[in-house]
């Protein structure tokens, strides 16, 4: 793994208007290195989704800086932002609401290409996009024969694979994964996490992984930041944060995770 910083967030702050204004993200600084999986964990309302929207520049921050591969994202306008944006793609939690139900799979997976690539337009472009969409589906373990089908024909796990294929269409360097397996059954989740690990190895991807599920984060993250009430309360390598947490809130979070081993239960006592 390289240690070259890909995403640098410095003193980032977001206030939403009100009396008093609510501070959703409060002086957050963190660095995501190329090739690693950086996980942001926190409970609902902690600001993790707002932070994600800020780093993709879907929201304008109140203060602070976001740099992608050394370039200040906030200094760029629409046209100059576009080449950077194609290097940062996102996979959202709900594979049911994150794709247009009226589009065929070929068009869903190919849409980023049509948006960003000159060659993907026009009559010749259509055939090339279709070929590329087939390759992308193959890379996420789906068959190219589904290109003409519609999203409702697929299970949650299959749809999430389609979302991943779409996110990979532009060969991004950073993939933001916002609770990508939270809506999935545990056996499906395990296979999607395996796929993400394999794609990372093969393509050298950097993951920014947002999750409330500490056990999932434990499994996939190299480094972890714990967020609470808009602030990062602790960050470090996954081993540090999970085995020797320094912050009281991190310890409380870890202690609250139900352990799938009845010999270690703390709640109900069981007759031997």
């Amino acid at each position, binding site marked *: 793994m390289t240690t070259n910083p890909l995403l640098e967030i410095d003193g980032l702050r977001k206030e939403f208007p009100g009396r008093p204004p609510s501070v959703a993200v409060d002086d957050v600084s963190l660095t995501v290195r190329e090739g690693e999986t950086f996980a942001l964990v926190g409970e609902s309302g902690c600001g993790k989704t707002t932070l994600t929207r800020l780093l993709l520049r879907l929201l304008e921050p109140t203060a602070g800086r976001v740099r992608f591969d050394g370039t200040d994202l906030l200094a760029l306008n629409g046209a100059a932002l576009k080449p950077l944006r194609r290097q940062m793609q996102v996979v959202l939690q709900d594979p049911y609401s994150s794709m247009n139900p009226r589009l065929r799979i070929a068009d869903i997976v190919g849409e980023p290409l049509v948006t960003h690539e000159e060659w993907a337009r026009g009559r010749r472009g259509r055939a090339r996009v279709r070929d590329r969409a087939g390759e992308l589906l193959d890379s996420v373990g789906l068959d190219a024969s589904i290109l003409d089908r519609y999203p409702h024909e697929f299970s949650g796990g299959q749809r999430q694979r389609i979302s991943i294929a779409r996110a990979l269409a532009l060969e991004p360097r950073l993939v933001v994964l916002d609770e990508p397996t939270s809506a999935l*059954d545990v056996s*499906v989740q395990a296979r999607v996490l395996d796929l993400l690990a394999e794609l990372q190895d093969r393509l050298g991807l950097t993951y920014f992984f947002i999750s409330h599920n500490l056990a999932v984060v434990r*499994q996939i993250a190299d480094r972890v930041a714990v967020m609470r009430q808009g602030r990062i309360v602790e960050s470090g390598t996954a081993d540090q944060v999970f085995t020797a947490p320094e912050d009281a809130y991190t310890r409380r979070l870890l202690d609250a995770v*139900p*352990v799938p081993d009845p*010999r*270690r*239960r703390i709640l109900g006592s069981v007759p031997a």
Partner: protein
Amino acid sequence: MTDSAQTPPTAPVLEFRDLRVDFALASSTVHAVRGVSFAVNSGETLAVVGESGSGKSATALSALRLNPEPPCVYAGGQVLLDGKDVLGLREKELRKVRGARISMVFQDPMTSLDPLQRVGDQVSEVLRLHGDHTRAEARRAALTALDEVGIPDPERRYGQYPHELSGGLRQRVMIASALVARPSVLIADEPTTALDVTVQRQILELLVSLQRRHGMAVLLITHDLGVVAETADRVVVMRHGEVVETGDVHQVFTRPTAPYTRDLLAATPRLEPVA
């Protein structure tokens, strides 16, 4: 599958016998529950664990005959509550059973509570509908129930609406309304799935302590093996509408017999490797 193989030592308060539940859809019939048999004893927590489509919720809802009919058709079997088949009851008789002898806590308190009704009235409603409580008695009992589930300042909370409460407090209100009539069976269908992990821990602690205090049977429906390991005495594993494994929680986690149970355990992410 037969029910004789797993006859429990104590008297079952709720027993599913070869239950079959179909959903008759326009194009086809889905056999959601395909001959399920197991029993829940008073005072125990029995967890039914399975993934989506396993039939675990359709099984649980059958105990109150709450699956929507149509499209649901109870195609066979019995659900015995204190020895009487719930599926054979008329709507009027069912209403006497629901909330009084058997009650339910659902996953999402926001959609299960009435947004236009004060939460205290939603708790006391159970008593006003059942039996012969006066308004004042029902109110007093509801306040006691709110207090018992750990809602601070129940007098003030009584008059509030669901949107004024956090997710954790709303789930406590649901538990209060489920328990106010002292049912012998509580069905909890994914009761903590919508909650943050620290709130989940508090709600699980509450359910465990209430069960100990009142000695009711708890039928816990969940997909989360962590929640099962923390709370259940016995476990039923379901897949594709069938029971694939039944046993003591220790046995199911340490010596699972069904390959599917082993797959589920292997797929469950853990904070620490298995000892």
